């Protein structure tokens, strides 16, 4: 244990779990620094904060499991030397939230960022509030509590100083890591106030004074680098497989090639003969619908990773493939297409689209297909677990450490209080690491062995046993009258739901999936219907960066461009026209039985404003020089989509040569409300373009006899440094804090594929309706 804690302590911005408490209990009172005439304040002297600068607004944060916590006693510790420790309770997978949220707290409390250490929280939602790091909601749900924590901490520091000096709180100011009293000429550092300040009760929000935006030191500036930067570039950063405990054994597992497949026979003699292999253990097989329980299988436990991999590969197992053993991708695609040929279950019914289609002078029908995809984060799933004296401790790169903790406790028949989940850095995640089956595997084996076990997934394991992005057919029927006016838009979706991972598969989608671009078409058309058509899962389906928005944006934005072409119109002009005048989408007018799903965010605070969607379209078109002439084989394409309550439009410049697609340039306009860390917004947009290009060009998981056919990066390819969207220009629509921060981790991905497909069409006349693009343009 000590070894591991030392390892963590080496990180420049990470301190061991026990440190915060000891910092506070060891706090000793030192003399107040006052009246030091020669001492020059280097920081500006604007008094921070005024009442009413930051009115409260509602988000779905409190509605999440275990809600939101905004207490500085939980999130902030100040050492006697003034070093401030701030808790990051969200997982860091590359979006920068581990830096940005503590930065917001530090700014609002007037702490000097150079004297702040960020400490990662363990999985403990009753203490920290919800920790599910997904849904692009770290900033959306937590920027407000972070400001409240910071302002409350500043208030407590001022209270403590005022009490020391026997003055009123409004006579003192908190500036640059100290509290000052101008007329007395007194000042006291945060370190010296720590003990007294922390002993105070958390003040209620209505007495808090928040900073004006012009007083921010770090928020909105984009000047604070991520806290792990130095450790990452020098190899010291700690990811899931980097934690070491003395005597750690390594497990590599043979999992069923088809979900729910059972073992007919096994010969493990060759595995046992490999030097370093110690034990072979069985994990119970689980069927589809087992949530995040391990798939089961046979674990080879060895002295080191290499021996475990060799041992696992030497197992001879004959499987009974079971009910999903005939799953085959081409047949399934045909099944999904057939499903959308029939009326489905209505999820939106505005006007009468069926009648309008019947009466239409012309009906255009477009079908778009996307296969399953695997997240393939650069760090394959891995976790270390230890078990001793009835307690289990896990170190794992998980997006939802509290769910990992409670699920693991349930799986092991333990009380959650006896399970600890420590969160390492995540070497990419993209939704895969929300499902902590790998951590539960490690815990199960550690309990069986009675000591530390690290489970290492190989890349082949990762590609073959993911929680795959849904596969879908999206069919859109558009009715035109004799004047070529659009009279009807009917969208049918057939896609297996992630509900099938949680419960018995009824072949229907969850409101979350329906809410991601199926029910909320923002077009001004009189007759609009949306239907979901039956689709049953034959593998584990789970959310993947941007989730159902990917196929929906691809379908809707491709169909819009196809329609523009049919009508002889410019893609951008037609897109703006069909979005129509600025308005707030209204669920009742739109023909929904209830409310829009809207990421569960209250519509009062986060309405769907079509003017903001048109706004990013206009902005990106202007910046990209829409309409400019390009050489033969090159063209621009445009797409726009609102997801995670952010509005994004993209113009992709495609160049097609001998069937090879290149993207010299992408322009991205982002309206994400207030941008707390514009630098990380830009990096997320760069990332989304590359991630989107990988999905569009290459990503397809195929099944035969129920088994995944791809295995590693040679056949499940990624965009590389020799062909990526070379220039990504990001334009952030400027907003003050009054326009609420939304989310940027995911919404950049969905518009990429349709913008690319629209550009390819403009460049070549070839319309891409099936993803991935693969070799389609070579034929």
């Amino acid at each position: 244990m000590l070894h591991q804690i030392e390892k963590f302590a080496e990180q420049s911005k990470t301190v061991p779990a026990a440190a915060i408490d000891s910092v506070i209990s060891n706090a000793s009172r030192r003399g107040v620094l006052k009246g030091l005439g020669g001492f020059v304040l280097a920081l500006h002297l604007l008094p921070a904060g005024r009442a009413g600068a930051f009115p409260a607004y509602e988000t779905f944060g409190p509605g999440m499991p275990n809600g939101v916590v905004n207490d500085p006693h939980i999130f902030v510790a100040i050492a006697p030397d003034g070093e401030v420790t701030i808790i990051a309770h969200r997982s860091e997978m590359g979006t920068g939230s581990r830096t940005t949220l503590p930065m917001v707290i530090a700014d609002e409390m007037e702490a000097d960022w150079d004297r702040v250490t960020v400490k990662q929280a363990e999985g403990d939602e009753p203490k920290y509030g919800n920790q599910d790091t997904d849904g692009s909601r770290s900033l959306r749900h937590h920027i407000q509590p972070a400001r409240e924590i910071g302002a409350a901490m500043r208030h407590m520091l001022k209270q403590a100083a005022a009490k020391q000096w026997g003055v009123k709180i409004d006579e003192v100011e908190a500036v640059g890591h100290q509290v000052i009293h101008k007329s007395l000429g007194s000042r006291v550092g945060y370190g010296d106030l720590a003990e007294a300040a922390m002993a105070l009760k958390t003040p209620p929000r209505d007495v808090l004074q928040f900073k004006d935006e012009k007083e921010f030191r770090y928020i909105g500036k984009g000047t604070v680098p991520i806290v792990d930067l130095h450790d990452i570039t020098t190899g010291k950063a700690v990811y899931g497989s980097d934690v070491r405990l003395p005597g750690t054994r390594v497990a590599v597992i043979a999992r069923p090639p088809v979900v729910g497949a059972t073992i007919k026979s096994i010969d493990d003699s060759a595995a046992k003969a490999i030097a370093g292999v110690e034990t072979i253990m069985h994990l119970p097989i689980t069927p589809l619908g087992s949530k995040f329980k391990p798939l089961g299988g046979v674990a080879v436990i060895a002295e080191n990773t290499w021996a475990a991999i060799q041992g696992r590969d030497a197992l001879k197992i004959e499987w009974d493939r079971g009910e999903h053993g005939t799953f085959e991708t081409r047949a399934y695609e045909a099944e999904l297409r057939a499903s959308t040929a029939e009326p489905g279950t209505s999820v939106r019914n505005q006007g009468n689209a069926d009648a309008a289609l019947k009466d239409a002078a012309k009906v255009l029908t477009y079908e778009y297909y996307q296969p399953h995809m695997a997240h393939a984060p650069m760090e394959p799933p891995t976790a270390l677990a230890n078990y001793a004296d009835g307690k289990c401790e896990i170190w794992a790169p998980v997006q939802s450490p509290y769910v990992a903790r409670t699920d693991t406790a349930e799986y092991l028949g333990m009380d959650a209080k006896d399970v600890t989940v420590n969160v390492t850095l995540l070497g990419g995640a993209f939704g895969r690491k929300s499902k902590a089956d790998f951590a539960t595997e490690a815990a199960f084996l550690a309990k069986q062995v009675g000591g530390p076990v690290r489970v290492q997934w190989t890349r082949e394991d990762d590609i073959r046993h993911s929680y795959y992005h849904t596969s879908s057919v999206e069919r859109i029927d558009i009715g035109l009258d004799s004047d070529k006016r659009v009279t009807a838009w009917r969208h049918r979706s057939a896609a297996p739901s992630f509900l099938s991972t949680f419960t018995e598969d009824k072949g229907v989608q969850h409101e979350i999936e329906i809410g991601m671009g199926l029910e909320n078409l923002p077009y001004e058309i009189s007759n609009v219907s949306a239907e979901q058509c039956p689709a049953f899962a034959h593998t584990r389906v789970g959310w993947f960066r941007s989730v159902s928005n990917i196929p929906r944006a691809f379908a809707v934005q491709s169909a819009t461009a196809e329609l523009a072409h049919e009508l002889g119109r410019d893609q951008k002009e037609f897109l703006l026209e069909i979005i129509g005048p600025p308005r707030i989408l209204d669920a009742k007018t739109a023909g929904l039985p209830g409310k829009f799903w809207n990421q569960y965010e209250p519509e009062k605070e986060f309405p769907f404003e079509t003017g903001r969607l048109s706004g990013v379209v206009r902005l990106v078109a202007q910046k990209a020089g829409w309409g400019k002439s390009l050489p033969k084989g090159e063209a621009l394409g445009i797409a726009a989509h609102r997801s995670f309550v952010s509005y994004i439009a993209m113009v992709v410049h495609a160049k097609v040569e001998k069937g090879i697609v290149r993207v010299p340039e992408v322009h991205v306009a982002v309206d994400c409300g207030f941008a707390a860390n514009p630098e990380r917004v830009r990096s997320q947009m760069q990332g989304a373009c590359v991630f989107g290009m990988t999905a569009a060009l290459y990503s397809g998981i195929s099944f035969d006899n129920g088994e995944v056919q791809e295995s590693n990066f040679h056949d499940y390819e990624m965009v590389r440094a020799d062909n990526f969207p070379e220039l990504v220009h990001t334009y952030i629509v400027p907003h003050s804090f009054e326009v609420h921060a939304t989310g940027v981790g995911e919404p950049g991905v969905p518009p990429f594929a349709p913008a690319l497909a629209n550009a390819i069409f403009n460049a070549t006349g070839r319309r891409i309706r099936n993803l991935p693009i693969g070799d389609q343009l070579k034929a």
Partner: protein
Amino acid sequence: MTFRINLNGKETTLDIDGDMPLLWAIRDIIGLTGTKYGCGIAQCGACTVHVDGEPTRSCQLTVEDAVGTKITTIEGVNGKVAETAQTVWAELDVPQCGYCQSGQVLAAVALLSQNTKPTDENIDEAMAGNLCRCATYHRIRAGIHEAARRLEA
């Protein structure tokens, strides 16, 4: 079997199966974890180390074959080129999740050591073996150009 390898300037004795890939010997036996596992088949570059200065996928080099070479990992890389690259990486805030960056930095240092003025094409060729799923390619390319500029100055 016993093998003596030279890692980060130190002679290290390993008592292991000579077929073990250097990657796992570095991570599991020597205990340096900056070298990452990503694919095991030389398709991603996360495990890149320098072998006699050449960027090499440590998942494909056995311990036995590494004997007699000088191996440098991210923990041991030093000198002007490495320091410049690491400084520029920080200034451009290159990493997102960071998992691939040990390999990216080592590949970039090897390139800059051999080519003081790499073109975009040189960079593409040298870096195409190093995958980044978060997609930091833009900043890596910019970082290599910037490091080259500073090293020339």
